[in-house]
Structures are given as C-alpha cells and as structure tokens.
C-alpha cells in the first residue's frame, strides 16, 4: 500500500509542479473529509494542492430552519423523535437536540428500520423519523415509508431533509469567481446514482470528476488522477472505485427514491436555496410527511445572514475573513456547516490556527 501511495504522491507532485499554480480540489463526501483528516493526507500533498471540504456532510448542511422544526416536534408530548446520532449536535436557532434530549423523547437510531420499529412498539405516540442524508440514506427512508403505507402504520412519519449531491455541485460551480478546479466525487453516493451522474458536471463546467473510495491510498490515487488530468489540460469523468461503483448505479435504489420522492428547491446551511436539491415526499405518501402532518414551516431563519461558509467552502475566503468566525460562531456554538463539523475548515482553523491545519 505504501508503495502505491509513494508512487501516486510522486506523480501528483510532478503534475502540481508542472501546473505551477494553486490547485483547488473539492471533496463532496463527509467520509472523504474524515479520511483525509484522520490519515493526515493534507500533510503529504504538494504545497500548491489545496483540498476544499465541500458540502459533503449531509448533517452539517442541514438548515437551521429544519432543526428548528425538529425541536418544535421534540417539545410535543405525543411524539418520539428518531434520529441518526450525528444529527443530535447540529444547532438550531438557539439550541440543538442534545440540549433537548434529556427532557424530550429523542431516540438515536442506526437505521430507518429501527425508527419504524419504534413506531410499532409505541402505538400511542407518533414517531417522527429525522430523514437526512444524500442518495445513500434516501432509499432506506423510501423503503420504510412504503412499508408503513403497506402496513398502515399511521403513527409513523418522516421529516424529509434528504439532499442531492449533483445540484449542490452545480450551484457551487455556478457561483461567481468560484475557484474549484476539480471534484473528488463520493464513493457511497456513486454506488447509488452511478458515476455517470457526474457526466453533466464534466460536460457543462469542464471540471474533472473522479470517483474514489475512502482508504488513504484510494484518495491519493484519485487526487493523482485529477492532477494528471489538469496538467494535461483535460477534464474527464473517471471512476477509480470500480469494485463497487458502476456507471448506472443501483437501479432499484434509484427507483424507490423516485417512487417516493420528488426533488424540490431546498435550503442548505451556508449555501442558501438550491433548486431541485431536496427530496420531498410525493403526494401519494403525504400522510407520512411530518411537515404536512404537523403544519411545520421549512422557512429558514434569517440569523445566518453574515455566515460566509459558502465562500469558505468554495475556497474564496479563509475562515477568519468571515465576520462571525470566532465571535458568534465557535465549535461550541456553531453557525455554519464548516464549524458544525469537527473536521470542517472553520472548526479546524479555530482550534489549531492556519499553519497547523496544512502542515501540523
């Protein structure tokens, strides 16, 4: 493995030297972000190759307005909130589920099936599943919605915050002055949607899109492929994760998503509203839609005006250039996604300062 890493590292260095400018590669997958951080990958890359951690953590990009809706439900005596663990810490306007958890019926579940089971076990309560995640978790949500419909489990519903990766990538590239040179595309999401889904990014924006797995060696080889393309003046679509990712992806999973959900405009923390980027339950399943059942609003609150995560994500500014940084936005009380995630650019900067992020 180290041989492969060394080889890819040498080639990447040569390509970056040949390019002779700063290269910004964005990863749009939380697991990539974590692996890059835990393996210390930044520290072994050439100085002019910068990794931007994009909106790849579906939890971190969940809008504050959505969290506020969850908190509103958590206050109801007749509801149990079933949520994935990492959602617990994401802040709403003035608090998170963590602070609420002691009092309210908030349960951490590992799967959507667990949430449905919770509904079956608690017939006198309404179980609201906090359905977040990209195309990776959306099929599992769709399956339980269908199951609940088939078995008429009426005390179950979902608050869909599911998001789609490609519309977010398009939105980022459509932003003025964005400095993204290429994307390291997410392995898990690609298993579902197929690497072919990124073809439109390559075609419409001429940016290399390379799908990679999550081990250090796979990430470094993916980055090497990107740098090789850039130095050759190319922009191509390539999957380096052929063991599990196909061009067309998982048809059954795509079908179940399509059957239950339709893409609508939705709010992303730090990025604002993105067209056709959020999954809403189709009318056929609206009785399982917690927004409708409880008359909740999806309107984002305005407090984030001033949060510049969008620009941080795109490599346009460094975290301290944001007026919120270190003042109203800290790891203990985060505002934007880059501070919510402990691996986020702002959180890392806040704790360790500039020099230590790049070359600890």
């Amino acid at each position: 493995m180290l041989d492969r890493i060394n080889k890819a590292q040498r080639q990447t260095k040569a390509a970056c030297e040949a390019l002779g400018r700063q290269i910004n590669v964005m990863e749009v997958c939380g697991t990539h972000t974590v692996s890059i951080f835990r393996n210390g990958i930044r520290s072994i890359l050439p100085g002019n190759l910068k990794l931007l951690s994009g909106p790849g953590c579906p939890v971190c990009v969940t809008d504050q307005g959505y969290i506020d809706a969850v908190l509103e439900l958590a206050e109801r005596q007749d509801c149990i909130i079933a949520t994935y663990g990492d959602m617990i810490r994401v802040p709403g306007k003035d608090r998170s589920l963590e602070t609420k958890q002691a009092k309210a019926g908030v349960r951490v579940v590992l799967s959507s099936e667990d949430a449905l089971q919770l509904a079956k076990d608690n017939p006198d309560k309404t179980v609201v599943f906090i359905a977040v995640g990209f195309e990776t978790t959306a099929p599992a949500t769709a399956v339980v919605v269908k199951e609940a419909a088939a078995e008429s489990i009426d005390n179950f519903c979902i608050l869909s915050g599911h998001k789609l990766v490609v519309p977010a990538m398009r939105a980022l590239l459509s932003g003025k002055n964005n400095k993204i040179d290429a994307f390291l595309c997410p392995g898990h999401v690609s298993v579902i949607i197929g690497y072919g889904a990124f073809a439109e990014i390559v075609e419409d924006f001429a940016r290399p899109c390379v799908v990679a797995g999550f081990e250090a060696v796979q990430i470094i080889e993916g980055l090497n492929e990107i740098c090789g393309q850039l130095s050759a003046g190319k922009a191509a679509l390539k999957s380096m994760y052929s063991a599990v990712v196909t061009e067309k992806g998982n048809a059954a999973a795509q079908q179940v998503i399509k059957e239950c959900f339709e893409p609508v405009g939705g709010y992303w923390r730090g990025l604002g509203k993105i067209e056709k980027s959020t999954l809403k339950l189709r009318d056929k399943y609206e009785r399982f839609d917690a927004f409708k059942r409880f008359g909740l609003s999806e309107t984002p609150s305005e407090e984030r005006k001033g949060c510049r995560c969008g620009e941080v994500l795109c490599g346009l500014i460094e975290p301290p250039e944001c007026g919120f940084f270190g003042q109203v936005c800290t790891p203990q009380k985060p505002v934007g996604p880059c501070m919510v995630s402990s691996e986020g650019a702002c959180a890392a900067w806040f704790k360790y300062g500039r020099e230590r992020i790049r070359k600890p």
Partner: protein
Amino acid sequence: MSASGHERILLAHGGGGQLMDELIRRHILPGLANDTLAELGDSARLNLTSGSLCFTTDSYVVKPLFFNGGDIGKLAVCGTVNDLAVAGARPAALTLSLIIEDGFEIEVLDRILASVAAAARESSVEVVTGDTKTVEAGAADKIFINTAGLGVRVAGADLGFEKIAAGDRILINGTIGDHGMTIISQREDMGFQSGLESDCAALASLTCRLLENTMAIRFMRDPTRGGLAATLNEIAGGAGLSIEIRETDIPVKPAVQAAAEMLGFDVLTIANEGKFVAVVERESAERCLSLCRDHPLGKNAKIIGEVVETRDVPTVEMETRIGGRRIVQMPYGRELPRIC
C-alpha cells in the same frame, strides 16, 4: 427464590428495617467477608501503614449491566482501583454504595455482588463499608453503584504533570478501544459482537510492580471516557508540552478497529477500562516496557510516542499509517455514530 425469600427488591429493602438487615446479611456480606466489614459499624475503622494516602470516588451507571468481559460489579471495583493505581497508590479499602430500583431481581443483584467480591479479591482490596438505598421504579435505571477507594502511595512514587519533560516516552499497557466498542455494540445490538470483549481489569498489581522496580514513571492516567485521545490531551495540557504518537505503534484489535470504522468512530476516542498510559523517562522506557510485558495485563504493551517541546499551544500529533501527520483532538464528550 433467593436466600431472603424475596425475588425482587422492594422499597422496604432500603428502609433500614428487617428487610434491609436481611439483604445485607444474606446477600451482601457473605461474598465480601472481612473483619472490618463484619463489624457493621457506622464507619469502618482502618489501620493503614503510615504514608501518603490517595482517596478517590467514582459512580457506575453502565448499560447494559452485563457485557462481554465484565459487568457493573467488576467495573465498580476495577474503575476505582485503577484511579488509585494510576495515582501511584496500592489500594487498601473500598466503599460500596448501591442505589437499586424497586423491582430489581435479587438473583441479578447476587450475580453483581459476586463480581464485586471476585474483583476485590483479585485486587487484594477489601470492601470495608457501604450503603444500600432503594428508589421508586423509574427513579434509577436498575442499579447504580458508587465506590470510593483509599490507597497508600507506593514508597518513592512521585507522579505529577510537573515531572513530565520533553524526551519522555509514552507507554500503554495494551490494545485500545476494547471496552467502549464492546459496550456500544451490545447496547445497539449490532450483531458484530464476536471478537469484542471489554478489557475491564484492575491494574494495581501491574502499576505497583512498575513503581516498585523503577523510578522512571513520571505520570500515569487511565484512558477511560474520551479514550486515549482525551488522556493524551490532558497530559499535554497539564504538562504544557506536546506529544507525538505513531499510529502504527498503537495496539488495536482488528475486530475493534472494524467495529469503530463501521460506525465512523475514531478508535482513539473510545473508552478503555483496563489500560493506563504512563509517561516514562526515556532511558528507562525499554525496561518499563519489559516489566509490563512480563505481567498478564501488559503483554501487548507498547511505547507509542514521546513528549516534545511545544511550539505554541500544547497539542497531540500523530504520524499516521501513511506517513502523514494529524492533530489528535480532545473529543467532544460523546461519541455518536455518523451517517456521512
């Protein structure tokens, strides 16, 4: 039917009357038998050798009560013994306080008490006094245990953050993450429990052996909640120095690593209950390592890094498996499975 004729704990078992007396005499005393406890005085009278005393307390609320490799009773003894051990003390006496929920099965209580007794015997420590309270159903989750421990500092043991110096080595007595991953997997009933076993163990025999045979130990701490990451950050912060560790030298069982990765956990942040981190003088590091490895609780001991001068703020840094470097953060306080 239990020895006292009841199958379940009743509120009256904590009422100070006949039922409580029965509970104590028939269920608690027999396994823990020792002269001090047998007096059943309002306080235990101890005759300790003169010297510096260490005193600690800890409460145990683990869920599930029984897990691979231990249970709440064993944990309640080992945890407190370990707090004494890493302070450089030889444990002398423990207290045992039980808070029991109304309706708790007495047969289960008996099993827990048998574990307490066995763990105390193994650590050569006596339970000398205690307390039993019962609370209404719902006011406690089955059973909570508090133990306090009194220990006598090993002669010559002089440990403290201020003793730590750049160049000192970091030693750990074995694999990390075993306890935490066992508990998490059993709690979530995740179906990958095979190969996972808590490392719950009392460390005093090993730490005393080290302290008696070398003067090289500067500091010790047991990496329980928050795991190795928290303990190393506490040491760096306390000493005002930085620490560098090597990922390839940190012992982790493959099953633990796999379970942690599956849930998105960083194994460095997972709790241990039978491990200690020792900061040892550089010249004697190898000798400390071999002293550890000759003991059953230190067979997999490793030197995992060293203390270095700090550049700005004290940090813990790790050389990763691929030769990269990263900062090991102080964990937030609660590990949550992640979906991304």
